[in-house]
């Protein structure tokens, strides 16, 4: 795909909207279900919540967010090059897996499909974030890889000392922040 055909402002906006959208999904889901507790319940527990609004918001929200992530990944891989292009390609995969997380919710069958998509999503997303950090450094950016480095170290530090639910929440929050920053960065790219 010709990178010049992708408008950086459009791609950046999709990234920002995707991050804010999933944040809204999380907030609305938790707001509707008071039994959801940070650090004790995983985000996927919202998908099987007794509160129908929370379950629907989370499951459909994941699917919509997955589409936005995929579109953002397509744009990022078209506009940028090198490691950032790889990061964009991985974001496409991550978006597809996120759609799978929403479609195959935790209560689907015995939950194996959901678990598979969840692990794949986080694995691909983490690798995408690392590639973007290297790519931004190579492209001469300093603040964006610095912030990405902070959130990477924070997530690594949470691996051994926190519950899985808290770790997942931290990783998702950090990933949304990363996507927001990447969206702003791409938004500011001048189209030649």
């Amino acid at each position, binding site marked *: 795909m010709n990178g010049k055909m992708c408008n950086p402002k459009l791609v950046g906006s999709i990234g920002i909207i995707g991050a804010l959208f999933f944040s809204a999904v999380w907030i609305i889901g938790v707001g509707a279900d008071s039994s959801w507790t940070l650090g004790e319940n995983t985000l996927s527990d919202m998908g099987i919540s007794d509160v129908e609004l929370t379950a629907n918001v989370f499951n459909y929200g994941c699917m919509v967010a997955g589409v936005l992530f995929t579109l953002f990944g397509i744009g990022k891989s078209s506009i940028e090059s090198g490691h950032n292009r790889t990061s964009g390609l991985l974001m496409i995969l991550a978006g597809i897996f996120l759609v799978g997380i929403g479609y195959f919710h935790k209560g689907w069958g015995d939950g194996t499909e959901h678990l598979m998509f969840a692990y794949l999503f986080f694995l691909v997303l983490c690798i995408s974030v690392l590639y973007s950090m290297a790519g931004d450094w190579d492209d001469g950016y300093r*603040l964006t890889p610095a912030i990405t480095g902070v959130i990477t*170290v924070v997530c690594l*530090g949470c691996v051994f000392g926190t519950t899985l639910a808290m770790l997942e929440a931290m990783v998702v929050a950090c990933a949304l922040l990363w996507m927001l920053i990447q969206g702003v960065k791409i938004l500011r790219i001048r189209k030649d």
Partner: protein
Amino acid sequence: MSATPFKMKAGMAVAIIGAIWSFILMSQAWDGSLDSVYVVGLAMFVCVMFFATAGAFTKFCPVKGSTVLVLSVVTAAVVILAMVYEAIPLIEGIILVILAIICIVCGACPGVVSWVDECRDA
């Protein structure tokens, strides 16, 4: 060798303030029991990183110019981790994060990077 850039002085000053404050928080983290050793250790890690960052913002910087930013990044991350593990209180932690972000901003400046590399080559 050119005069010390303002951002070098600012970075060092901010890092020193962070180091002293986190040292005080480290002493407050000790509650007399052996179980508090973990939180004291984490607060000490924060203090050590701030001191390391402060040392990087000098003409005797032991690392490359671009590594000053890496030190600042690790400092910020460690402060956030200390907040997550409740080694330091929330409000003080937020202020320390702001100090670390100032160090990041200073460390990201091309002028700082080139000045540090110039001192190392001299």
